């Protein structure tokens, strides 16, 4: 049975996300999809969906959603208070909510992005095989707005017997592993020293395209212009200001700033949970 969800308050920024639209970067189309893919997959698994089903990605301040039908949901990602009425819901768990329940997410206390999966997935018109909302390219559904009605799809797989997952809370000061290159020859040795030893702050200018960092200027040994080249998820790009940017899910497919290092795959989800004002460190491999 399908579930109707009414958006009472959309929260700070709530979008529909799945695992994105890989395979189109050569046309200038970013992959997009969940900024923390692991949390999206987990939320889906808990309610018996395919891992890449569309779910809601909330940013810092979560939405208020009125469930018009009985629903099985799961909330993963950031540490956040979620309630139905007076009842506090456990995170990283499959939870049944009765028809008429008002699901309210507050403000994340650790991490940035929460994922709300509903059994059956959220349905929307796919654009190039994905329902992901790409805010940079303005492809896919627009962010949620008050009064909007969402519909779940038809459930397919079985609901797993165990509906709780043990998950570590996002760290206060994460240590992200980075791998040197591809443009390490554009930087002075000092730049690597600074990258690996500094405490960086996440700027409030950050978004789904990139986490901008504030810290010491990373000195270059070349001042000429890099010819535009393909950019990969997790690339630590250094513009002329010397202040690095970690490229996230909606990052542009090409760029003209040299990439000093790239975040290791294992830490990409943690990069997607960086919140403005938060501190982080890099470990250079």
């Amino acid at each position, binding site marked *: 049975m399908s579930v109707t969800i009414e958006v009472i308050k959309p929260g700070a920024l709530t979008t529909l996300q799945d695992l994105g639209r*890989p*395979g189109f*970067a*050569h*046309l*200038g*189309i970013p*992959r997009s999809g969940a900024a923390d893919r692991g949390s999206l997959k987990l939320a889906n698994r808990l309610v018996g969906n395919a891992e890449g089903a569309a779910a809601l990605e909330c940013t810092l301040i979560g939405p208020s959603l009125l469930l018009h039908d009985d629903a099985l949901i799961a909330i993963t990602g950031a540490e956040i208070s979620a309630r139905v009425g007076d009842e506090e819901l456990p995170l990283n768990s499959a939870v049944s909510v009765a028809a008429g329940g008002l699901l309210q997410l507050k403000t994340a206390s650790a991490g940035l992005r929460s994922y709300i999966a509903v059994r059956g997935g959220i349905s929307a018109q796919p*654009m*190039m095989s994905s329902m992901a909302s790409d805010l940079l*390219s303005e*492809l896919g559904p627009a962010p949620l707005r008050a009064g909007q009605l969402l519909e779940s799809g038809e459930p397919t797989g079985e609901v797993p017997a165990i509906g709780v997952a043990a998950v570590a809370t996002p760290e206060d000061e994460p240590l992200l592993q980075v*791998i*040197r*290159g*591809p*443009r390490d020859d554009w930087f002075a040795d000092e730049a690597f020293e600074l990258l690996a030893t500094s405490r960086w702050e996440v700027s409030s200018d950050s978004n789904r395209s990139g986490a901008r960092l504030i810290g010491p200027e990373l000195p270059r040994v070349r001042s000429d212009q890099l*010819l*535009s*080249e*393909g*950019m*990969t*998820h*997790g*690339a630590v790009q250094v513009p002329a200001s010397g202040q690095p940017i970690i490229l996230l899910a909606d990052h*542009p*497919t*090409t*760029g003209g700033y040299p*990439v000093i290092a*790239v*975040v*290791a*795959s294992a830490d990409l989800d943690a990069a997607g949970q960086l919140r403005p004002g938060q501190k982080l460190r890099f470990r250079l491999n």
Partner: protein
Amino acid sequence: MSLPPTIRPAGDHSILIELEGNDAVQRLAARLQAERGELEEIVPGHQTLLLVWARETPSLSEVEQLISGAQLTAEAMPEPSEVELAVNYDGPDLAAVAGACGISPEELAARHLACRYRVGFIGFSPGFAYLLGGDPALQPPRLAEPRTRVPAGALAIAGPYSAVYPRSSPGGWNLIGSCDELIFNEAQNPPALLTAGMAVRLVAK
């Protein structure tokens, strides 16, 4: 004698291959597109090809094998398909660019039209094609202050590149004209009119 490609790791899931020029990029991209294997993305740049895997990158020797022969300039390439774009030279920066090049706006238009262009790569925004092959005497730098809004269809030049903005967006290129052709349409398959390697001929509207 041509230089062998340089293989640069880009994290644990991507590799950036630096080639001697855009022709070599097109040749390698075309070959890898045909035998995609486990590659998730093949992204041409001006002189590079970014390869992205859904898993960890293969070993250096596997990558070397994958791209072997890319430096052979004699490698046969299929004749690129050609697209014709009808343009008007009516952009707000036309007079300034012509002035900076020491020619009249009419001469700039004539010389810009006379070039044979090829799509070097797509980037910046969906369907935004960097056209190579422009007149080396017409290479104005980007604007010092980018515009917050460039209209869809604007014909623009910056450095060695020409382009038609597929959609309205911010932009720092010099706007010299306009084009009515729909460059990007997400409802179509493929959504982008221009792809890397295509030949592009501009004609006066």
